[in-house]
C-alpha cells in the first residue's frame, strides 16, 4: 500500500517536473544567449495560459489543439519584448537589467489584471480529463498529456539547437558573441529568436497547464522561483541539464511535500537551490 502511494507520488512529481523543465528551458535559452536573467518569464507562462483560456472560452477550441497557436502568439510577445525593451539594455549594468525584467513582470501582471480581472478561471471540459490507470497507479490524463507534451517540445528544441543551421547559429552566439558576429551571424536576429523561442516554451507550458491549473494574473509567481532553481541545478544554458534538473526538482518537491507537509514544498526546493549554488554553482551539466 505504502509503496503504491510512493510510486504514485513519484509519477506525479515526474510529470510536473517535465513541465518545470520546459519552462526552465525557455529561461536558460535566453540567459545562455545573452546573459540576462528574465524575471518576467513566469508572465510568459501566464500569457500562454490566458491565450489557451480565451481561445477556449470564445471559440470553444480545446487548449491541446490550440498549442501551436499559443506558441506562435508567445513567440511574437517574446520577440516584441526583446525588440521594444531588452534591446536597449544589452550593455546596461546588471542592476538596470534586473529591474527592467522585474518591471516587465509587474507590468504584465498589472495588464492581465486590468484586462481580464483578477478572478480564478478554469478550462472546464477539455478533451483530456479524467484519469488513466497504469498497473495500479492512477494518473490524471491532463497531467499525463502535459508531461508527454513537455517531453515532445523539449525534444523539438533540442533537435532545433543541435541539428539545424539556425540552432547552431544560436548556440554559436551563446558561446561567443563576437566570434559569431565575425562568422556573419546577425546577433540581433539571434537575440530576437532566443526571446521568441524562450517565451514560446513558457507559453506552451502554460497551454499544457491550463487544462488542470487555475488561471489568474499572478500564476507566474508560483513557477518562476522553481524555474530559477531548475536552471541553476541544470547549469545555465544547458537544455539537457534543464530537463534532468526539472524532473529532479519535481520529484523532490512532491516527495518532500508528501513526507513533511505541502506547506514546506517550496522551502525544500529553495534549500536545494542554495545547496547547489554553494557546492556546485555550475550546475549538473554546466561548464565552469
Amino acid at each position, binding site marked *: 500500500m505504502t509503496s503504491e502511494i510512493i510510486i504514485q507520488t513519484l509519477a506525479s512529481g515526474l510529470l510536473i517536473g517535465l513541465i518545470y523543465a520546459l519552462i526552465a528551458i525557455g529561461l536558460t535559452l535566453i540567459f545562455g544567449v545573452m546573459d540576462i*536573467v528574465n524575471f518576467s518569464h513566469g508572465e510568459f507562462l501566464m500569457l500562454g495560459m490566458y491565450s489557451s483560456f480565451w481561445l477556449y472560452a470564445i471559440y470553444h477550441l480545446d487548449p491541446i489543439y490550440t498549442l501551436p497557436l499559443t506558441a506562435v502568439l508567445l513567440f511574437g510577445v517574446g520577440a516584441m519584448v526583446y525588440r521594444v*525593451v531588452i534591446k536597449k*539594455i544589452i550593455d546596461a549594468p546588471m542592476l538596470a537589467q534586473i529591474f527592467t525584467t522585474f*518591471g516587465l513582470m*509587474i*507590468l504584465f501582471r498589472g495588464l492581465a489584471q486590468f484586462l481580464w480581472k483578477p478572478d480564478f478561471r478554469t478550462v472546464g471540459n477539455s478533451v483530456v480529463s479524467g484519469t488513466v490507470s497504469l498497473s495500479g497507479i492512477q494518473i490524471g490524463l491532463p497531467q499525463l498529456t502535459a508531461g508527454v507534451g513537455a517531453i515532445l517540445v523539449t525534444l523539438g528544441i533540442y533537435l532545433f539547437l543541435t541539428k539545424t543551421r539556425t540552432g547552431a547559429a544560436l548556440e554559436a552566439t551563446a558561446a561567443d558573441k563576437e566570434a559569431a558576429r565575425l562568422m556573419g551571424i546577425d546577433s540581433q536576429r539571434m537575440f530576437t529568436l532566443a526571446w521568441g523561442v524562450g517565451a514560446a516554451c513558457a507559453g506552451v507550458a502554460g497551454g499544457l497547464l491550463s487544462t488542470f491549473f487555475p488561471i489568474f494574473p499572478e500564476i507566474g509567481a508560483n513557477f518562476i522561483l522553481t524555474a*530559477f532553481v531548475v536552471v541553476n541545478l541544470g547549469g545555465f544554458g544547458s537544455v539537457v541539464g534543464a530537463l534532468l534538473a526539472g524532473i529532479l526538482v519535481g520529484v523532490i518537491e512532491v516527495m518532500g511535500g508528501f513526507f513533511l507537509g505541502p506547506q514546506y514544498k*517550496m522551502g525544500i526546493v*529553495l534549500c536545494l537551490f542554495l545547496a547547489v*549554488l554553494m557546492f556546485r554553482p555550475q550546475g549538473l551539466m554546466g561548464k565552469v
Partner: protein
Amino acid sequence: MNQLNQQPVVSASYGSAGYKWPMRLFFVVLLAVVIFFPFFEKSPSHQNFVILVLMAAQLGVAWNIIGGYAGQISLGQVAFYGLGAYTSTLLFTKFGINPWFAIPIGGLLAACISLAVGWSCFCLKGHYFAMATIAVAEIIQIVFTNWDFAGGAVGLNLPMEGGWKFLIFADKEPYYYLALGLLLLTLGVNYAIEKSYFGYYLRAIKDEPDAAQSLGVNLSLYKQIAFAISSFFTALGGSLYAHKELYIDPGSVLHTGLSIKMALVSILGGVGTLSGPVIGAAVLTFIEEGTRMLFGGSGKGTDLVIYAALIVVIAVYYPAGVVGWIRGYLSRRTAIRQMQLEGRSA
C-alpha cells in the same frame, strides 16, 4: 559637441564640485523644513505620507551600503526587515522585554544572520548572489508563516497603549520624529562609511574586485561588514514599521516586493550616492501613492500598470538615477562654462 557629451561620464562625481555650497545650503533648508513640517502641517494623512517617505528612504540608504557601495545586489533584504520586526515584537509581547532593548537586539540578530548568509553566498557572483538572497528571504518567509509561536500566517499584534517608554503612540507625530531620527542615524553611518577607508575598499570591491584583492583588500571581510551594517539598519526599519502599524504578519514584513522596493529606491535616486535613496524614496512614494489615489480603488490594477511602466522606463533610460542625471547636467554646464572662459566656443 561630441566631446561635450563625453565629458560628464568621466567627471560625473567631480562635476558638481562648483555647486558644493548651493547644494549644502539646499540640504540644510530641506532638513529644517522636514524637522518643522509637523508644526505647520497637522493633517495625519499628509504627515503619514512624509513618514512613508522617511521610512522608505531609510531602507534605501541601508540597502545602498551593500547594494550600491559594495555592489552586492541583495534582493532579499526583506528577510532582515522581517527578522527585526519579528524579533523585537516577540521579545516585547511574549517575554516582556522593553522595546528600547528589544529593537537593537533584533538588529543585532539580523546582523548575525546576515553574516551566516554572507559567509555562504559571497562567493557567488552577480545574478547568482541576487537569486540566492531571494531564496533566503523566501525560506525565512516560509518559516515564519508556519511557526505558530510567531503567530503563523495570522500575524502578531502589539499592545495599543504605551508612550515613549514602549515607543507606541496614538498619533503620528512621534513616529514622524522616530522615522526621521532613524533616517538621519542611517545617513550618518553611511556618510562615515563614504568618507572612511572602508568606503574606498567597498567601491574598489564593486568596480575592480580582482585588482582590490591583489592589493591586499580582504574582499569577503569587507563585504561581510557592509552586509551586517546594512542588515542591522534594515532590521531597525522593520521594528519601526511594527511599532507604527502595531501589527505584523509574513505578508506585510516578509513580502518579496519590499526587497525590490528597497533596491528600487536607491536605483531611482542614484546607486552608491548618499542622497540618492532619499530622493528616490520621495519620488517612488509620490508615484505609488499618487497612482493609488488617482487610479487605485477600481480594483483593476491601473496603478500597478503605471507603476511598472515607470520602473521599466527608468531602468532602461535613466539607469544612473536622479542624482546621476543632475550630476551629468551640472558637469555639462561646468564644462560649457569652462570652455567659454577659455575663449573656445562650444
